[in-house]
């Protein structure tokens, strides 16, 4: 036991906060991520993380809670992308790219102003790469509240969203209004991206959004099962990542821990690679059944 979990892991308050927030965020990201992957909106999801970078750094500058900045600007960004047409496949690559470029420019300015005017160090590091061990326990209720909002929104639009994703024509024929459903999904995505920016940093939050969902969709084609698998993978990667980062403090003699975000992203990527193995084995053992 001592080799796996270093002493003090279960009694440390920062660890409790990290496990709680990390777990909640992983659940929301994985659930929203399933639809992001099926709808082919990974680029949009990633763009929102960079939009939320600008929001987080602006909030830092104004002395507000970074979470409000992350979520606030992310919501504005998703609205903008919907306005200039992310729902059409043609041209959405470009529209997303333009929003991405502009938001990075804003983030550059706000981060620069953060470091020069507020005389605070660590803003760049904290906003971009996250710092799950330094989260304030007071954040927990806010994170849980936003997570519940996002999950409830997803549950409400679940059926029309699924239909609109799988076959937009049938959905339209059945009276599903595609545009509001798409917009509602983008807003849920924005909230989830804002939350994961807080946990693992804005430029890495794409990992929790896309990784578990993509792995789950390679393991099963049934949507319900994929949702549960993705949530399990996301939570497992986050918790193991937190544990490894905690342990890493005791590795070597320098007592210079490794970043949590690195472990979470690396685990997510490994799980994604491993999730391709069953399908590949099935394909090689029964080559005649392909296509």
């Amino acid at each position, binding site marked *: 036991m001592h080799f796996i979990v270093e002493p003090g892991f279960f009694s440390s308050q920062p660890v409790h906060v990290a496990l709680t927030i990390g777990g909640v965020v992983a659940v929301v990201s994985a659930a929203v991520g399933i639809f992001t992957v099926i709808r082919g909106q990974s680029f949009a999801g990633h763009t929102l993380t960079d939009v939320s970078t600008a929001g987080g750094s602006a909030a830092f500058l104004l002395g507000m809670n970074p979470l409000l900045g992350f979520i606030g600007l992310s919501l504005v960004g998703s609205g903008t992308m919907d306005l200039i047409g992310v729902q059409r496949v043609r041209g959405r690559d470009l529209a997303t790219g*333009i929003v991405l470029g502009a938001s990075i420019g804003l983030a550059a300015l706000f981060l620069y102003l953060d470091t020069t005017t507020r005389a605070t160090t660590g803003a760049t590091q904290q906003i971009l790469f996250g710092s799950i061990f330094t989260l304030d326990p007071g954040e927990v209720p806010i994170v849980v509240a936003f997570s519940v909002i996002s999950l409830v929104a997803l549950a409400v639009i679940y059926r029309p969203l699924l239909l609109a994703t799988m076959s937009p024509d049938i959905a339209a024929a059945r009276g599903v209004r595609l545009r509001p459903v798409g917009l509602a999904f983008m807003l849920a995505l924005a909230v989830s991206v804002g939350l994961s920016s807080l946990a693992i940093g804005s430029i890495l939050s794409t990992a929790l959004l896309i990784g578990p969902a993509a792995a789950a969709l390679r393991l099963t084609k049934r949507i319900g099962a994929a949702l549960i698998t993705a949530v399990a993978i996301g939570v497992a990667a986050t918790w193991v990542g937190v544990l490894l980062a905690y342990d890493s403090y005791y590795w070597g003699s320098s007592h210079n821990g490794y970043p949590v975000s690195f472990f979470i992203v690396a685990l997510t990527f490994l799980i994604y690679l491993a999730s391709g193995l069953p399908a590949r084995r099935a394909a090689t053992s029964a080559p005649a059944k392909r296509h």
Partner: protein
Amino acid sequence: MFSGFMTNTWVVATVVAALAGVVGFFVVLRGSAFPAHAIPNGAFAGAAAANLLGLNALLGLGVFAVFAALGIGTLGRRGRHDVVTALALVLMLALGALFLSRSTEYEPAIYALLFGEVLGVSTTELLPVAFLAVVCIAAIVFMYRPLTLSSVVPEIAEARGVRSHRMEIAFLVVLAVATAMTVPVVGALLIFSLMIGPPAAARSFTDRPPVAIILSMAIALATVWAAIASSYASNWPIGFFVGTMSAFAYGIGRAWAAWRRSRRPATRL
């Protein structure tokens, strides 16, 4: 603004902008905005690794950018292209975060790599940058016809014997080399803006590829020059000006295209 220590900056920025204009045209034509965003971030990890090991930054940038390009190209063949790109992107960023956490240089180093540092260009960096730029432009000229064909009408290109997957890999490698040399100047996050905004604007003005490429170069040059001047005058980061000016150029292009369409509705495709 044009004093001695700024000369290198102007020269490098001009080379970078010209290259971004050309390569960016194909990025927009092929719809490769996401890989174009991911590969520079891979280069960021490379720079962090080189920093940690005490190697030449350009070497780290190049190796990681090409590695990211090949990874996206090969894995993307099997799975969903955008998912693979997203995962490669975050993996590279996570490695970058790891390497930076191991080294002693911290905040200013991260910031400069991500958002660019105008004043940090030394004379020894000029030659490799110019050399790589020539290599990239030569590669684009060499592949010009098959690349354009496979970008616009992939089916016809296949029928004529162009291997579209090999073309994709070749293009991603050129993209990787182009970004590796530009990252230290404009930053990993902003070379992307330069590769999207100006070419996208140029394409709203003309449909003819050669004209669009030249126009795209011109807009990129104007953007970079104006950004350096504004950054020098205001002391604000160059990244902010490159990002917003690129988006502004695209906005003008869109407005122009909309105005043209409203004037000649009959010729609309």
